[in-house]
Every structure is written in structure tokens, then in C-alpha cells.
């Protein structure tokens, strides 16, 4: 009973299965690490979860099941839909702090979502970081936005356009692809006609970005292709081959094989898990870390572990060192951590190489 319980709806199967598997390992590892170190104020962490196959109703069912079996303090949710659906229940219960796979801009609103946060920038902030970078590299650049026709894909469009205008960048074309589209030739033709300096993709895991890149190359375009967190896993790109070379994107966390000096936590991770660690792993790991930190601060303040206190504790995090998971001390003033860095994929080494310094939108 003295345990601190992290519960989760994880998409272990289905379209986002790979994410769930990575997140599971990340949280699991962090929990193990903390427990080996004696827990949080002497209390052990425990992680319980259910598979949801990325379906909202299954996820809500899992929530209810876990909730009736355990006294939950933290919850890891698996989709924007779930985060929105369960929110009234979270607000009503007031006992749980929740984070998850979703970086939906809509969730970045402490008034409506007082008991939720995301362990990174929201999607608009991600593209914002990309724009920041572009504005510095090539002022006045021409940009094409490519988004999938899903809630996920459409999320940052409005915000990105607004931000681009502020930064004096020109959005020359907006391409929306149906979620089931396989062949993107017509979209590539649009891209060719627009001849942008940069194309920013959002709402995809991998396909159809490689096909865009390969056709653009055939056509002799020198557009730079960029993406956001969920399409930044080098493991997936490694299977694409040479075409992938030069793909860029924003990444809120360091890659597990980054041997930077100021990243002791990455050493720990490599010790615990010598094999490949995906980007969702890092996300899960960091989320668990923030959960723990919130719990620690709440307990230290002698307060009860409930949603309100945990969220308040989370928001006291200021210039916090994540052990190098994020290359810059972080401050969580609202529901997100608007920090990230641009990486470029290198097909020869099959790694993501840093292309910029850490960019924070908080300053």
C-alpha cells in the first residue's frame, strides 16, 4: 500500500505498437533503477499496464480496470483521443497525474487539462523549433507543409502557419495526404511545382516520407526534408537505405547512443539495456523520471499524493537536470517542455547527428 503506482494504457499492438513497446521498456527501466536505489522517500514504484492496440475505448477500459484494482498516482495514456476522453474523469477524480504519447497542442492548456502534461514540446512547439532553426539557417525560406489527414497530422497546421509568418518564412504550399494513401506521386508533383527550401512533415511515422525524398531526388530538387518526434527514430530510417540521408527533424531527447559528457543518465541506460533503444524508449524513460520527480517533491513537501499536488510539484521544476536526456536544464511552467534539437540522419553511420544546439522556446 505504500507503493507509488504508475499505471498505463499502452498501445503494444496496432499502428503505434512499436511506440508502446518502447515506452514500456523505458518506464520499466526507470522504475527498476529507482527501486534499486531505494525508491522515492522509501516508497517503491510499481508499473502496471494494459495493452490498448491504440484504441480509445480499449484504453478507457484499461483505465477503469486498473483504477478499480490499484490506487493509481500516475497514468500513462496512449493517444490524444484517450487523453481527451479521460480528462473529465481525471478532473473529477483529482487523484492522478497523467502524461502520455500525445503531444497534441490542445492538451497544452493547464486550464482544461489541469492533471495532464507532456514530456516534451507539443506538436506546434516542435514545428516551432524547426521554424526557429530554418529562420536562422535561411531567412525568408520557402516552406511546404505536408500533413496527414488525421487529428494527429492536422494538429500543428494553424500554429505553424502563424509562427512562420512571424519569422518571415513563406509557406508556399500545404499538402494534406489521406491517412491510407500509399502512392504520393501527385503530392510530389505539387512539391516540385512549389520548389521549396524545406518540407516539414507531420503526422507520419515513416511512410510516405522516404518516397517523397526518393522522388524529389530523382527530380533533382534540393529541398530539405524535416519531421517531428514520431518520425525521428534512426532504427526505422536505417531500413530505408541511402535515400534517407539528410533527413532532418526535431527531437526533444538525446539518442541513447549519444556519448555526450554531460549525460550520465545515458550511460546508465546503456548499461541497463545494451541493445537498441528506440526514441519512444527515451520518452517513456523521461516521463517516468518526471513522474518520480513530481512524487518526490510532493512527498518532500509533506503533501498527499494527489493530482493537484503532483501537478503543482511538477510545475515547480525549474532548471532541472535530466541527467542528459535533454541536453539543457528544463523548466516546466505549464503542460509542456518546449525544448528540442535538430538532428540530421546520416545513412552511412545509420545515426542521427546533431545539426543544431538545443533550442528552447521558453526564452
Amino acid at each position: 500500500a505504500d507503493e507509488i503506482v504508475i499505471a498505463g494504457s499502452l498501445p503494444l499492438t496496432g499502428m503505434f505498437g512499436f511506440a508502446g513497446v518502447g515506452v514500456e521498456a523505458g518506464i520499466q527501466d526507470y522504475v527498476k533503477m529507482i527501486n534499486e536505489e531505494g525508491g522515492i522517500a522509501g516508497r517503491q514504484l510499481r508499473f502496471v499496464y494494459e495493452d490498448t492496440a491504440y484504441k480509445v475505448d480499449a484504453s478507457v477500459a484499461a483505465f477503469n480496470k486498473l483504477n478499480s484494482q490499484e490506487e493509481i498516482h500516475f497514468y500513462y495514456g496512449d493517444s490524444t483521443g484517450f487523453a481527451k476522453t479521460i480528462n473529465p474523469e481525471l478532473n473529477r477524480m483529482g487523484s492522478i497525474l497523467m502524461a502520455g504519447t500525445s503531444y497534441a497542442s490542445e492538451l497544452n492548456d493547464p486550464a482544461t487539462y489541469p492533471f495532464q502534461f507532456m514530456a516534451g514540446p507539443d506538436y506546434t512547439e516542435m514545428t516551432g523549433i524547426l521554424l526557429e532553426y530554418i529562420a536562422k539557417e535561411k531567412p525568408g525560406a520557402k516552406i511546404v507543409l505536408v500533413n496527414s489527414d488525421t487529428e494527429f497530422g492536422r494538429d500543428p497546421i494553424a500554429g505553424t502557419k502563424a509562427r512562420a509568418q512571424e519569422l518571415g518564412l513563406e509557406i508556399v504550399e500545404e499538402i494534406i495526404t489521406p491517412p491510407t494513401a500509399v502512392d504520393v506521386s501527385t503530392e510530389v508533383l505539387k512539391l516540385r511545382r512549389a520548389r521549396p527550401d524545406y518540407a516539414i512533415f507531420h503526422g507520419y511515422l515513416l511512410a510516405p516520407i522516404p518516397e517523397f525524398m526518393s522522388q524529389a531526388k530523382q527530380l533533382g530538387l534540393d529541398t530539405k526534408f524535416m519531421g517531428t518526434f514520431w518520425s525521428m527514430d534512426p532504427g526505422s530510417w536505417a531500413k530505408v537505405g541511402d535515400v534517407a540521408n539528410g533527413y532532418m527533424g526535431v527531437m526533444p531527447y538525446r539518442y541513447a547512443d549519444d556519448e555526450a559528457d554531460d549525460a550520465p543518465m545515458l550511460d546508465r541506460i546503456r548499461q541497463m539495456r545494451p541493445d537498441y533503444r528506440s526514441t519512444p524508449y527515451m520518452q517513456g524513460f523521461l516521463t517516468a523520471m518526471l513522474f518520480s520527480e513530481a512524487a518526490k517533491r510532493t512527498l518532500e513537501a509533506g503533501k498527499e499524493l494527489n493530482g493537484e499536488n503532483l501537478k503543482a510539484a511538477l510545475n515547480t521544476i525549474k532548471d532541472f537536470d535530466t541527467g542528459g536526456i535533454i541536453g539543457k536544464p528544463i523548466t516546466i511552467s505549464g503542460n509542456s517542455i518546449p525544448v528540442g534539437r535538430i538532428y540530421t540522419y546520416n545513412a552511412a553511420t545509420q545515426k542521427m547527428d546533431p545539426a543544431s544546439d538545443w533550442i528552447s522556446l521558453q526564452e
Partner: protein
Amino acid sequence: MLIGTAKHSYRADEALLTTSPQRLWMAILLIALALAPLALDNYWLYLACLVSINVASATGLNILTGFTGLVSIGQAAFMAVGAYTVAVLEARTGLPFLVNLVVGGAVAACVGLVVGLPSLRVKGLYLAIATIAASFILHFVFVNWQSVTNGNSGINVTPASLFGVELTDYVHLYYVFVPITALMVLGAANLFRTRIGRAFIAIRDRDISAEVLGISLLRYKLLSFAVSSFYAGVAGGMWAYFFRVVTPESFPFIYSIFFLAAIIVGGMGTILGGVVGAVFMTLVPELLRFAVEWLTTIFPNAVTALSPIRTIVFGALIIGFLIAEPKGLAEIIQRIRRFFHLWPFRK
């Protein structure tokens, strides 16, 4: 006059429950439903509410597909119409929630009428595909009709309230949803005791000869669509009050397939089939959850390793059922009933 073995009037012979054991079982079932919340925890109450929503919608689909023979793979889209209607009404008017539910059903029924139009020209799987088309077009409307649906972000629904009580607890919702669903199921059962129900079945069995018997195909096919969508709309309305947020992705295409699977596994063309099918299909994935959990005690990593197996088991169940008992669960129940009909006097 004496008809059959023990019935002494036409009225008795036409009753829904014709034997006293049947009446006894029904009474037991109703009492059990009334007392269930005393024994169930929040998770099971949640599932009970979900089951009741799904039963309402599946019964509607059964009227259309099982009884009228018009295959629809758009039931979830009709639910979405009901859910959006309720969400909009709840946000913009102060109408009581029961009224909202009925209006939700009515709006869904109207949409159903339109979607049903192709049924006058096409049949069978062609029609099924038309309903798929309708559901994708509706999805497009939900995403793009910003001013009403609020686009991708959807609409948050304030809790329903009855006699001043906010219906947020699953117990409260249970006591509202289960009676509504029970009434809807009863209504459907009644429907098939009258000329309208018989007309539906006639259309299923052979529509052109039905027409010559004086059944207007135009009217009854559309009526069937409307009734079915009304059920879906009310179920969708309950869904909206249950989950309290409605987005375009709340009612995915797979949810429509779920309903079709439910009535097929349960038994098409019997009221009982729609009900048990929905119960079964809603609970199976949850029971699998427990199976996997139990396996975790033996293989610690079972959840990750065995998760795809849930997808497989789900498919395998549909296949297995259809091959072993194409008439569905209802038929199995009937068989058990026949077996125990004279029990314990005879086997």
C-alpha cells in the same frame, strides 16, 4: 379454442414470453440487472454501461441487417451523428438530456433515411459498401464542418443530469442506460409482432414478392434504415454522455464492423442474437485482458509478447463461431433451452 399444447387464447399464444419458465427467467434477469451495481466495482460498471450502449446500437443494426436484410457497415457513423447532436444540443441549449437523446436519435434517423436511399437500387454487399461510403463522407463532415463540430478537436459534453443529480458516476449512468436499452430492446421485440416487423422480414426474404403483397419497398426499406439509425443515434447519444467528448475519431470504421460482427456472432434476425452478440463481443476483449494477466504470472513478459495474440484470438473467435455455429449464439442458447425444456423430468 385450444392452440398448441397449453395456450388457451390467441392473446396468450401471441405473447412475447409464452411459458412460465420463460417468465421466471426474465424476472430473475431483471432483478439481477437491478441489483447488479451492488456487486460490481467501477470497472465492471463501466463495462456494463458500455455493454448497454452497444446492445442498443446492435439491436438497431439487427433490425436493419438481421431482419430487413440490408447490410450496413455504417452503424458507428450513425452513432456519431447521434453523439454530435447530443453534444451540440448539450452545449447550446438547456434541454433535458432525455430530450437530447431522442433528438439525437431523430437526427440520426434522418441521416439514415438519406443513406438508405441507395438501398432502393442496390442490394447485399453493394449496399454494404454504400454505407461504408456514407460513413467516410460523414467523417469528412465532422472534420470540416468547423462551426458545428469544432473540427478535429471535437466537442466536450457536460454531464447529463437527472433530478438535479449529475450523472458522472458509472452507477448513475448504469441506472439510466440499462432501462433505456431495455426499453429499446422491448420495442424492437414488439415491432416484430406487428405488420411492420413482418414487412421487414418479407423484404429480407424476397423483396420483389413482398412488393406484390402490398408492401411498399420505398417506405419500408427507408423505415428500417430510419429505425435502425434511430437506435444508433440514441446509443451514440448515450455514448456522448458516457465518454463526455465527441471527436471525429471517436467512432472509427472498425466500430461499425464490430457491430456487424456482434449481430452475426449473436445471431442475425433474432432479438436475442443482437443482445447476446453485443454483450459477448464487448466483453471478450476484456476477458482476454484477464487471460493475458493470468499468463503474466507464468511468463512475466506476457503482456508485450502475447499482445498480438489478442488480435489473433479476436479474429479466430469470429471465424470459429461462424464455422461452428453459423446461426450464432442465439441458436446455442435455444438449443440449451430445448435441452432443459423438460428438465429435470426428461433429458
